[in-house]
């Protein structure tokens, strides 16, 4: 069977996680459900595996990693394995495929050296039990074939960051079987971005959509080093139930000169303003409903408002993952026992907070 080094997002489905990783599989799913995402492709796990074997570093890496059990500190092991990855050459077939795909993407977008985000798309990361989103590297505003190739390799190396190695050790995952895919996706010129949950993360209430938003790129919101505006919306009626607009003195913005996204000061006049309009909040709520319906479970979505596009096309999804906290808890039910008649519930409500002796305590149901 021939190897597949590249998969366009359009070709990916959720069953393809072993090949393209959770992130890219999920982007493919979104496209299939008619949910707008920026275009791009995955450099597959097969390409990664081919790289390891062709460079002859698979076994040596495993050997180094095993030293952890002999008490060698994680950071030493990590540094050595990362160096091994970064110094190894990319097989020619893979390099050619990546270059050709990037050129094709530039053509699709009508932009020469189109800026892309290069992100790792782990095969493990999005499994319901192993949420360590953002623990692998992401490179923004990458332009040109050489840069893309360089960042792909850096993403491969991020599989051996100290944190990720420690995480696998702690969870007892074997290092040998871990594969990684890398997503290459057109950069959005984000005016505002953030994350949303299709439930209230505070109490697991599924009738809400919780939105965190800040100016510029979403890196600060995802990593938590920027305090975002916070909105809570009723998923059924679209009522905006809570609006917490905070001062946002800094943001991750594009430095036009260096073409790098860096943490910069927000112009004075914008700091206290809400980073989303009510229309945008409601459009995001519609988006959350579509994504949740498509997956049939609570989701965690990264999104952005593209400064170049008119509303509502401006709202794009960057990433959608299954929500991992509340999904694993027992369902939040109201009825503590088998429901009785409405009358039982009414009596129960009337008696709520009222001290009742013996017998009647069996009555109050709700």
């Amino acid at each position: 069977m021939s190897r597949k080094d590249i998969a366009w997002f359009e070709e990916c489905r959720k069953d393809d996680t072993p090949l393209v990783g959770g992130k890219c599989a999920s982007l493919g799913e979104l496209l299939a459900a008619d949910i707008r995402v920026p275009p791009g492709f995955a450099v597959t796990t097969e390409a990664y595996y081919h790289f390891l074997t062709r460079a002859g570093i698979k076994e040596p890496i495993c050997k180094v990693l095993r030293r952890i059990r002999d008490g060698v500190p994680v950071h030493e092991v990590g540094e050595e394995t990362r160096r091994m990855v970064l110094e190894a050459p990319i097989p020619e077939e893979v390099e050619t495929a990546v270059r050709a795909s990037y050129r094709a993407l530039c053509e699709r977008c009508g932009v020469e050296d189109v800026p892309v985000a290069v992100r790792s798309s782990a095969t493990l990361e999005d499994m319901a039990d192993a949420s360590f989103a953002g623990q692998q590297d992401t490179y923004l505003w990458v332009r040109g074939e050489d840069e893309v190739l360089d960042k792909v390799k850096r993403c491969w190396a991020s599989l051996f960051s100290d944190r990720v190695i420690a995480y696998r050790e702690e969870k007892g995952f074997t290092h040998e079987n871990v594969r990684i895919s890398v997503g290459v996706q057109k950069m959005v010129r984000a005016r505002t971005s953030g994350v949303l949950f299709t439930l209230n993360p505070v109490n697991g209430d599924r009738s809400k959509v919780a939105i965190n938003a800040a100016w510029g790129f979403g890196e600060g919101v995802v990593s938590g080093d920027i305090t975002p505006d916070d909105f809570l919306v009723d998923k059924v009626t679209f009522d905006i139930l809570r609006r917490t607009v905070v001062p946002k003195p800094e943001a991750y913005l594009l430095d036009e000169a260096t073409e790098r996204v860096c943490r910069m000061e927000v112009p004075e006049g914008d700091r206290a303003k809400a980073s989303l309009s009510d229309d945008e909040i409601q459009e995001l709520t519609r988006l959350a409903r579509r994504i949740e319906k498509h997956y049939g479970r609570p989701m965690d979505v990264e999104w952005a408002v593209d400064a170049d596009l008119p509303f509502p096309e401006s709202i794009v999804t960057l990433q959608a993952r299954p929500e991992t906290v509340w999904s694993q808890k027992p369902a939040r039910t109201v009825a503590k026992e088998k429901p009785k008649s409405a009358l039982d519930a009414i009596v129960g409500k009337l008696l709520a907070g009222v001290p009742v002796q013996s017998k009647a305590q069996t009555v109050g149901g709700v």
Partner: protein
Amino acid sequence: MANGGGFPSPHDVFTIPGTEGWERMYPYHYRFGADDPERKQYEASMFWFYDGLHYPEPIYPFDMIWDEAWFLALSQYNTRIFIVPPALGVDHRIINGRIYITPVPVKDPSEIPARVEHFMKRAGYYYENWDELYAKWETKMKGVIEELDKLTIPKLPDMEEDSVVFDAVGRSSGYELLTAYDRLIQLGILAWQYHFEFLNLGYAAYVTLLDFCQKAFPGIPLQRVTQMVSGIDVILYQPDEELKGLARLACELGIEDEILKERSVEELFEELKKTNDGRLWEQRFEKAKYPWFYISTGTGWFHHDPAWIDELEIPLSSIRMYIQKLKKGESLDRPLGELKRERDRIISEYRDLLASDDDREMFDNLVGTAQRVFPYVESHLFYVEHWFHSIFWNKMREVSRRFVTAGFWDDVEDIWLLNRHEIKQAMWDMVTAWATGTQPMGRLHWGPEIAWRKQVMEKFKEWTPPPAVGTPPETITEPFTIVLWGITSETMAAWSKGKEAGEGPVRELTGFAGSPGVVEGPARVCRTVSEISTLQDGEILVCPTTSPSWAPAFTKIKAAVTDVGGIMCHAAIVCREYGLPAVVGTGNATQAFKTGQKIRVDGNTGVVSIVEE
């Protein structure tokens, strides 16, 4: 002496100079501080809140009849009829013309199990047979209204008719007048007995659904729960539908310009009589009157709020407003299908979000029960407060005319300064003097008293009543208090805070979030329904309260703000239907805001604020 919660003691509220002795205008058992230690101790231990929802102004002695009526009716259903497990009745007192009430709980927990058993049996019977019993209720209520309508208030002739002798009647007009007055009062009390026959149970079902939804979907706006159960075809909308129908008919007949011409109702009908089309329209107008014009311009609780039937200018000006809309090509239709679809969508989506089949079963039960009981909760207002009361006030004016004839007072409207018990006494004075052929004491007694009472009422109006007196409970859980008056632990806290904030110009008021949405716009303060013709498109209505006769206003405005009312009040219901933000029960928006100010209404949080002077 202030107690722990910062509310005055009910026994320390001061008497306004010049009103000393005001207590005699009202039934004696409404006074605080009878000279008895046990009663005083009871009063001091309870939390009495001012019922501003029903009584935004001091209450006239006669208008006390409805307070006495509901004091009895609400309380008896809780305590003696349905045996609501934790709650007895609601006790009443009066201070400087303002009604204070307190819910009375069952004190001894050992009584509750037995009460539960009775309640399950009795309330259960009503919930199970609701539709059938409600149909009977309508028959009973229409019977009461019909009897009231037919009741004549006899005149006192110089000499009785021959028939009294030749038919051997054996009774005089004096006796008949006394009897007619008694029957009039009885019918009033009876209407209020029926008023509460279903209401407590209706609220209980609603509160339970509300509670369930708040547990399942924390933070769900109350108005959305209401939207799941509110009736859409309820008769409360019918009066307004009649006016729209008349506007449409006028346009179809091509006589709309005749109707739009500024002139009195009499002049208009004089003109309309001249053509076939005009006569056709007039017939339709006459037909609509009964019963749909028996709708008060206020809540129906006060003698001074006229009904449409009393002032035909009011419905006519609304018809004119609708004709103008039609001429602009706008539709007057309520999007019924859309409203129902939206209601059903909300119910089914929330249902799908529940976490278990048990929850869904419970939700279905509760929504079903609440939907069954809700049309009553909305419709009883039309039967009792509007239809019955509109006729009742005019019967009382008829009674007053007998007194005017007998020289007791000159102004028919003076009768409201006497309470119903005093009127009975005065009537004995009148009929015995008539029978005897002497002068009644009437004017000698009532002349100075009425003059004094008038100035007392004026002084009462200037007094700002404290929101509550007595000892606040730790928390408030009693469901009727929460739903009807919106009194919660949070409101109590807000009241204490409001007092500390002290005087100063108000920039912001908080009420109940009655209908969602946020808008800014110019305020238009309308103190009575007659002022709604001044409303301009896109203004925000600021008013004491609304009733169905205010309906035409809602097609022009951007949002509504009221002084009184909870999430179930008319303004909130109508705004939800029209998709307009509303904040209700703000306390004193009509005083705090002025016409022309730019204000912001946040129907999600219940806050109204001034944006620009």
